[in-house]
Structure formats: C-alpha cells, structure tokens
C-alpha cells in the first residue's frame, strides 16, 4: 500500500499535483498521482523504466497534457498552460543543446524567447548569461559549439540554460546518465551543492537508486504509474511501504521468503552469522546453508538458502573485515535482528504487522 502524503496545503509547497493521470490509449503511464513538492527541496522521482516518472515530469513541464487531474505551481493552476507560462525549466537526458548555437546563445535562448515576459534588454541578457556561466564555471567556453565540449561541460551548459531564467522549479530528467562513472559521482556532488546554494526547487528523475539516495531530500518511488512511497532516503530504505519498494532499493536486493500466509524479507547486510549479533534475544535465528561465496573486496556476498526454504535463494552480505570463516557447502547459524525483518501481505505486497515466523525456518 502506498502512503500518500498528507495533502494539507502547506504554504511552503511550490508544486501541488492532485489526481494526475496520463493514459496513452490502453497504457496508464501515470495513474492517479498526488504529490506536493516543497519550496527549495531536492525531490527525486525514482522508479524502473516505464514506471511513468518521465511522463509525470513532462506533465509538470507542460510538454504532455494530463488525461485527468491538476497541477498547481506557485499557487496557480497551470494544468492547461503552455510550458513558457509555468516558470519551469528542464534539463533533458540528452542535454538537448542547440547544436548550431554557441554556448552563449544556448544559454541566452530562453531569455530571448521570454524577453517579453521577463522584460530583458540586450545588455541585461548578456549580464545574466555571463553571471550564470561564471556560477557554473563555464564562462571560458561561451564561444564554443556544443560538439566541442566534453560530456561534463555539456551538462553544465544545459544546467546554466535551465537556471538563467530563475525558474520556480528545475526539472532534471536523468541528466547524469550520459556521464561516465568517474564523472558522475563528481557531477552529483556539484549538482547538490549548486542546488543548495541557489536554493532552487529541483525535481530529479532517475532509475538509479544510488543517485536517488545520494541527491534526494525526499524520494518518490514510482511503479506502474503510481506512487509507491514518499520519504527521506533513509525512511524509504529502512521502512519500505511495500514489497516493491523493499526489493527495488538496495543492492543486492532484499531477500523475500514465504511465511505462513504472508511474505517476509530482510536485507542481505542484516543477515549475519549469529556470533556477530551482540543481542541474540532480539534476533531471529536461521539455519543457513552456504552454497557459494563471492569475495567483493569490502564484503563477502554469500549465496545459499534457509533450511526449510531450500528453493528460495537467500543472500548474505558479510563485511570482509569480520573474521568469520565461511566454507562453501556447509551449514551455519545466521541471525537477523527482529526489527530488520519486514512482513508483507501475500496478495497486495503491502507492509503488515509483525507475524509469527513458522518453525520450519528456525
């Protein structure tokens, strides 16, 4: 079950989405979304591809007409307004830089296009472009064409172009996925710094949970067009609302096992040899058969199964620095702290209260 955010009209919420739906014929891309985005927050919309996150963002931008529902930005109903009247800007996954314009003209484009609304003259445009470029440290690239820039530089130009009009909301559609892994961590850090210092409201769409956990003040987990959970990275990870959220976040994902009329799960890193648990009374004991061990440097990833659930692969992630020897094809006593075991409804996948674990597993 999803836990919809209380829809009280907080004065600080800058975007208010109610009952938003988008159907493409039979496909329900977005299927009833209620969401309040707070002023100045970094909100991440996380979900697997096809979950409707990009469609949701495109509707906020005004590029997609909702089938039903309303979007308010800054207290004004913008559902039927074109993008230019919404005070939003967007950074696309491809950066969508205008290839025939140099960096200066790329950044100046929204200012010129909205000259009438923003009331800028030529000199003001020049000043805005230069100051925004300085902020993003691309002021020495203003004469270059996009194809003469590196991936990281292109991304900065795209962000500068999106920021130059001082939008109420900055929408970012997987802007880091085109960068190589080394650049990405750096870009993530810079993006967060930049968002904090400029105090802009950012909505960031991604399928990458590490990006989501690292960047988001709050994360919206989406699946099949619906919001599954909204919360801080920690609350979503530690207190998943349902089985989807529980298994979508975390790598390797949560072990899910069948209980008596319900399902339950625990994360591999919480599933440790009994001897490592300092308080065995609060823990649940399992007989664990170790099939195979992968040495991953900082951790050992253990593949095996619980005695009594031989057909359900169960993983354990044991830190390498704990000196417990784990031999393959052997039985061990493993334990999970009681509070780290989550219970789910067998039919709906929603979280349920603690259940009695069948004797078979112990």
């Amino acid at each position, binding site marked *: 079950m999803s836990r919809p955010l209380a829809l009280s009209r907080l004065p600080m919420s800058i975007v208010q989405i109610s009952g938003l739906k988008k159907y493409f014929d039979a496909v329900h891309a977005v299927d009833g979304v209620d969401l309040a985005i707070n002023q100045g927050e970094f909100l991440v919309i996380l979900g697997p591809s096809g979950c409707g996150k990009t469609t949701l963002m495109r509707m906020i931008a005004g590029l997609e007409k909702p089938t039903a529902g309303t979007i308010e930005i800054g207290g004004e109903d913008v559902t039927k307004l074109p993008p230019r009247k919404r005070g939003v800007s967007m950074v696309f996954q491809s950066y969508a830089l*205008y290839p025939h314009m140099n960096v200066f003209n790329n950044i100046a484009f929204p200012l010129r296009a909205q000259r009438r609304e923003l009331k800028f003259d030529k000199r003001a445009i020049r000043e805005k472009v230069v100051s925004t470029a300085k902020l993003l440290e691309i002021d020495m690239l203003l004469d270059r064409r996009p194809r003469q820039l590196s991936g990281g530089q292109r991304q900065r130009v795209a962000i500068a172009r999106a920021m130059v009009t001082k939008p109420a909301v900055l929408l970012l559609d997987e802007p880091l996925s085109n960068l190589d892994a080394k650049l990405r961590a750096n870009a993530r850090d810079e993006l967060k710094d930049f968002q904090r210092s400029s105090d802009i409201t950012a909505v960031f769409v991604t399928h990458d949970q590490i990006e989501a956990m690292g960047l988001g003040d709050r994360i919206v987990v989406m699946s099949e067009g619906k919001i599954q959970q909204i919360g801080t990275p920690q609350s979503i990870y530690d207190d998943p609302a349902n089985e989807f959220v529980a298994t979508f976040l975390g790598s390797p994902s949560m072990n899910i096992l069948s209980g008596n009329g319900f399902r339950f799960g625990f994360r591999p890193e919480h599933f440790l040899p009994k001897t490592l648990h300092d308080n065995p009374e609060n823990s649940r004991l399992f007989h664990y058969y170790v099939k195979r061990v992968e040495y991953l440097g900082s951790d050992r990833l253990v593949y095996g199964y619980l005695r009594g659930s031989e057909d359900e692969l169960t993983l354990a992630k044991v830190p390498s620095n704990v000196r417990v020897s784990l031999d393959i094809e052997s039985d061990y006593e493993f334990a999970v702290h009681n509070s780290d075991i989550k219970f789910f409804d067998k039919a709906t996948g929603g979280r349920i209260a603690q259940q009695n674990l069948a004797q078979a597993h112990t």
Partner: protein
Amino acid sequence: MTRLALPAFPLDNRRFVGLLFLAPALLYILLLVGFPFLLAIAFGFSDVTVGNTDLNFVGLQNYLAVWENDIFRQVFETTIRFTLISQIFILIFANILAIIFTQDFTGKWFARFIFILPWATPVSLAMIGWLWMLDTKYSPIDYLLLQTGFLGPNGILSNNRNLFWLATPDLSQISVIFVQVWRMTPLATVILMAGLSSIPTDILDQAEVDGSRFMRTLLQIKLPLILPIMVIALLFSMITMFGDMTVVYVLTRGGPVDYTRVLGLYSFQVGIEGGNLAQGAAISLFAFPLLLAMAIFMLRTASRAEVQ
C-alpha cells in the same frame, strides 16, 4: 588439418558474390552513364554527324563555334535564369509545405499522397496534361478567367478570349517556370520533411520549455538545423532542372522564337534533329563543368554545416 582442394561452388566465394551484388549498379553506371558520357566527350572533339560517323579529331573547334553562336549564349542564359528563378520558388514552397505536412492534422496522409503525385507522374504524361491546361485556344484556365470576367471584351486582364499561355514571350517563360516548380516542389518537400522529422524531439521540447513560440522555433531552431538537407534538396532539383529538356520539348519546343529554349533541348535539336552530333555533344558538355562546380560547392557547404 589440410583442406581438400575441392572445386568450390561459385556462390561460396565471397569476392564472387560481392561482385554479383555490385554488378547491376556497375553495369548501369558503366553502360548508361559512363559510356554515353565518354562518347559525348569524344564526339565533342570530333566532326561526327549523323550522315558521317567517322570520328576525326578537330580539337576545340566545336566548343569555339558553339561559344560564338548567339543562340547558344541566349540558350545558356535562359537555362541559368529558369533554373535560378524556379529554385527560389521551389525552396519557398517546399519549406512551407514541409512545415505543414509535419504538423498533425486530419487527412494528412491523403494530403501527402495527393501532393506527391506531380513528382510520381511520368514527366511526359504530366506535360501533355499541362499542354492541354495551357492550350492557346481551349485552356481551362482561360475558360475560368473568361467566365469570371477577367478575359473577353472589357476583361480585366485582356480583351482577348485567351491569354496565349505558351505563345507570348513573357507568359511562355512564366508558364515553363511555373510547370517546373509544380513538378520539382514535391521532391524538395519530401527531402525537407525527412530533414524536419530528423530533428531530435528533445531539442524541440527543450525549445518549448525555454519559452520559444512557433516562429522562433522555426527560424532559429528548425531551419538552421535542416540547412544542410535544404542544400541537398536544392542540389537535386537544380541539377535535374538544368539538364531537363522534356518540359520545354513537350510544351513549347523552345518557342516562341527562342524564349524558352534551354540547353538540353538545344543540344537535342542541334545534335539529333539537326544531325550535327559533334556540336550537340559540345553544347551539352558546356553544362558539365558548371554542374560539377555547383555540386562540389553545395556538398561542401552541406558537410561543413554543423549538425550533431
């Protein structure tokens, strides 16, 4: 293990199969383009006629004779003028139509289909149609103008019952240019449509979010981005038109007097109808360096234009 030297089945040989696949294209180029082209060059430097097919080398004699011929100069000038004027209209119409046809509207498929017909129809058939439309006496256009009071006694355009579309110096040239524009616009439009639909949707979405309206997006994003493709479209229609003889051959035979005589037709008339193969070849070869230079210039422009 050594391979047995069995006589291989020819289709197992990659080189043979490759050549086989290339053969139709190679044959076409060699027999229908290369050979006639070389023959034309050989003819141009000879004194060959329909009556006497001996090839005697006469140097630049044909070219000098052609160049000093006043009719040739006029024909050359007419060809360039027709080509340039029609290109301007083709570009304007093709751009407008390509933009219309890339919008969403009901009946788009049918409209596109109707619109492509002028290009899909064989030239000579289409020209026979136009010959009737522009007939000196029975032109349906004249009939409509007559009924609406533009023609006839006290008519706005003329007191005559006819405008003589293909018979007066001005109107005959306008008619030929108009028909050429009618015939070539579809191809240019299709090429431009391909160009417009190749612009990434992200770029157009970005422009929309950036607050750009229709005209700004058109003039500052779409047209600059399809400029290289526009050059290709222009190149195609210029080269087709520069060498074309069918339109004027069917409509006017170059008349009245020499007003609509173009290079292709003149070469045909001198070389084939007049029997002077050598001079006919020389006339047509005058177009070659010009077209070559044009093609090189445009292809360079297109490849230099910066598109990601």
